[in-house]
C-alpha cells in the first residue's frame, strides 16, 4: 500500500515539468500562434477549396458528371495530361544534368547558369508566353519559315507544351542543387577510384543519394505543369476541344456563365493537385522512414 501511495507523489514533479518546461513560451503565446496559423489556413486555403466543391455540386451529381464527360472537357483533360507527360520527363533530365554540372564541377558561367535556372520563377508566365509568340508567331522571328514548312507551333499543341516546359523548368534543378552540393564529390570520387564508369557512378552512387529530392522535384513539376494558366493562355489560342487545357477550359466555362460546369472542372483540377500532394506526402514519409531505419538500427 505504501508503494502505491508514493506513486502520485513521484509523478507530480514530472507532470509539472511537462506543463511548463523552461524552453517553451507561455501557453497563451503558443495558442495565439496556432490559432492565427489555423485561421489563416482555413480562410485563405481551405475555404476557397471547399467553395469550389460546394459550387460544383450545387446543381447535383448529374450536372457535375455531365460537365466532366463533355467532349471539350475530356479533350482539355487529355491535353493537360499530355503537356505534363512531356514536360515532366524533359525537365527531369534537364534538372538532373544541370544540378550535376553545378554541384559537382566548377566551370565558367556557373553562377550565370544558376541564375538562368531561376528565370522562369522570376519572369511572369505571361511574359514567357509572349516570348514564344514573338519567336513563333506569324510575324515572329521564325514565323515565316514555320509557315513555309507548314509547322504549327503557336495556337497548337507544341506551343502549349513549350510554354509548360518553360514554366516548370526550375523545379527539379532547384530541388537537387543544394542537396548535391551538400553531399560533395567524395562518394563519386571513391566510386571512380574503385573502377566504376561515369554512368555507373551516376546510377549506383549519385542517383540513390538524391532519389527522394528528385521525386519531390518531379511532383512539384507535375503539379505546376497541370495547373499552369498564364503562359499557356497566351500561346493557346483558346480553340475549344483542341488547344484548351483544364485551367483554360475552366476560364472559358466561367466566362460563359456556366458556373456549375466551371466549378466541376475546377474541382477535377483541384483533385489532381490533391492526389499529387498525397503522393508527395507518402514519399516524404517513406524518405523519412528510410532515413530513420538506417539511422536507428544500431
Amino acid at each position, binding site marked *: 500500500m505504501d508503494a502505491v501511495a508514493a506513486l502520485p507523489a513521484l509523478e507530480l514533479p514530472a507532470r509539472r515539468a511537462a506543463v511548463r518546461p523552461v524552453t517553451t513560451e507561455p501557453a497563451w503565446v503558443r495558442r495565439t500562434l496556432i490559432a492565427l496559423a489555423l485561421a489563416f489556413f482555413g480562410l485563405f486555403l481551405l475555404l476557397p477549396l471547399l467553395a469550389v466543391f460546394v459550387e460544383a455540386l450545387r446543381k447535383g451529381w448529374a450536372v457535375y458528371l455531365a460537365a466532366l464527360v463533355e467532349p471539350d472537357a475530356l479533350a482539355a483533360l487529355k491535353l493537360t495530361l499530355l503537356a505534363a507527360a512531356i514536360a515532366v520527363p524533359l525537365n527531369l533530365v534537364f534538372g538532373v544534368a544541370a544540378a550535376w554540372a553545378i554541384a559537382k564541377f566548377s566551370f565558367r558561367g556557373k553562377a550565370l547558369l544558376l541564375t538562368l535556372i531561376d528565370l522562369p520563377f522570376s519572369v511572369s508566365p505571361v511574359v514567357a508566353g509572349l516570348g514564344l509568340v514573338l519567336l513563333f508567331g506569324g510575324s515572329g522571328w521564325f514565323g515565316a519559315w514555320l509557315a513555309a514548312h507548314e509547322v504549327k507551333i503557336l495556337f497548337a499543341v507544341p506551343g502549349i507544351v513549350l510554354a509548360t516546359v518553360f514554366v516548370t523548368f526550375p523545379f527539379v534543378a532547384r530541388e537537387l542543387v543544394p542537396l548535391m552540393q551538400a553531399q560533395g564529390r567524395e562518394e563519386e570520387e*571513391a566510386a571512380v*577510384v*574503385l573502377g*566504376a564508369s561515369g554512368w555507373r557512378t551516376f546510377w*549506383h552512387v549519385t542517383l*540513390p543519394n538524391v532519389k527522394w529530392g528528385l521525386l519531390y522535384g518531379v511532383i512539384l513539376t507535375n503539379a505546376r505543369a497541370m495547373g499552369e494558366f498564364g503562359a499557356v493562355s497566351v500561346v493557346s489560342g483558346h480553340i475549344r476541344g483542341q488547344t484548351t487545357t483544364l485551367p483554360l477550359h475552366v476560364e472559358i466555362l466561367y466566362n460563359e456563365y456556366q458556373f456549375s460546369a466551371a466549378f466541376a472542372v475546377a474541382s477535377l483540377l483541384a483533385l489532381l493537385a490533391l492526389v499529387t500532394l498525397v503522393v508527395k506526402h507518402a514519399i516524404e514519409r517513406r524518405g523519412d522512414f528510410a532515413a530513420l531505419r538506417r539511422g536507428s538500427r544500431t
Partner: protein
Amino acid sequence: MSIEVRHICKRFGAFTALDDVSLAFPDGELVALLGPSGCGKTTLLRVIAGLEQSDSGQVLFDGEDASDTHVRERRVGFVFQHYALFRHMSVFDNVAFGLRMKPRRERPSEAEIRRRVMALLELVQLDWLADRFPSQLSGGQRQRIALARALAVEPKVLLLDEPFGALDAKVRKELRRWLRRLHDELHVTSIFVTHDQEEALEVADRVVLMHRGRVEQVGSPEEVYHHPATPFVYDFLGSVNRFEGRVEESGVRVGEALLLHEAPLPAGEAVIAFARPFELDIVPAESDRGVPARVARILAFGASARVELDGEGEPARRFEVELPRERCTALGLTPGQPVRLVPARLRVFAVE
C-alpha cells in the same frame, strides 16, 4: 609496386600547391607525407591517385609513366579523409562495390564476391557489421570499412588521406598500431598523409616532410627526428627551444652567454640554434654559463617534470625544459625564480 613522381607542379589559381616535387616510394614501404595544412601533401596524394591532374611532371608506377592513365585504370586504393562510404549501401555492398564494378569478363561470381568481402571484413575485424549502414557505425569502424573497401580491388598501392584525422585520441592510437600491423601483413606499397608528427614517426617506414609545396626532407623516422635538415623540420617535429646568436670560435654567442658547440659554420655567421626540451639543463642563476631565464610554471607529473620559462628581452622568448623529477626537486625551483639554461646539445642553422 614502386611509385615515383618527377617534377610535379600544381597550382590552384594564384596558389602553388606543389612546386617541383620529385620523390620515389620503394615497393612495399609505408611512407608518411607529413606537413602543416596547406603544404600540398593531400594534393600530391591526389595527383598520385589520378584524382587531380598535375600542371606538369610525371607519375611513374613501376617505372612506367602513368600520368595519362585514368584514375579508373590506375588500380590504386584510396581511403578518404571523411571515409566517403556510400551512405545508401550496407557495409557489405560498400566493400563489394569495387568487385561488382569490374568489367563483365573480370568480374567474380556473386559467391566469390561474398567470400572475398567476408574475408576482408574479417581482416578489419568487422565481419559482424556486414548488414549495417555507414550511419550506424562509429568513426573508427567507418575508417576500417573504408580501408576494406579500398583493399577489395587488390590495389597495387594504397593511398590514405589523413586516415585518423577525424577520430578521437584513443581510437586514433589504436588504429595506427593496427594499420602498421596490417601493412606488415599485406606489404602493399602505402602512402598516408598526416599533419601529426607523432603519427608519422610512429607508423611510417619513411617520412616525407613537406612545406609550402616543397619537400623539406626525406628519411626514416629516426633520421628526420635526430638529424633534421632544415629549421622547419626541426621545429615541426616536436617542441623546440630557439636561440638566436652568432658563431664564435668555441660556440654560439647568445646575448651575453656563450653556448659551447662545435659549429660547422665560419665564425661571425648569424645563426639560429635549436635544442629539444630534454636537451636543456637548468643551473642556478649564479652560474657563469647559460642563457638567463625566469621560471614561469612547473608541471610535475609522471616520470619527468616540465618547466616553462620566460627568457629576457622584449618580447620575452618562451622556453620549455624537460628534466627528471628528482633533478627538479634538487634544484628547488619556484615560479619567478631566475635561473640559467645550458643546452647539452644544439642544432645550428645559418640564418637564411
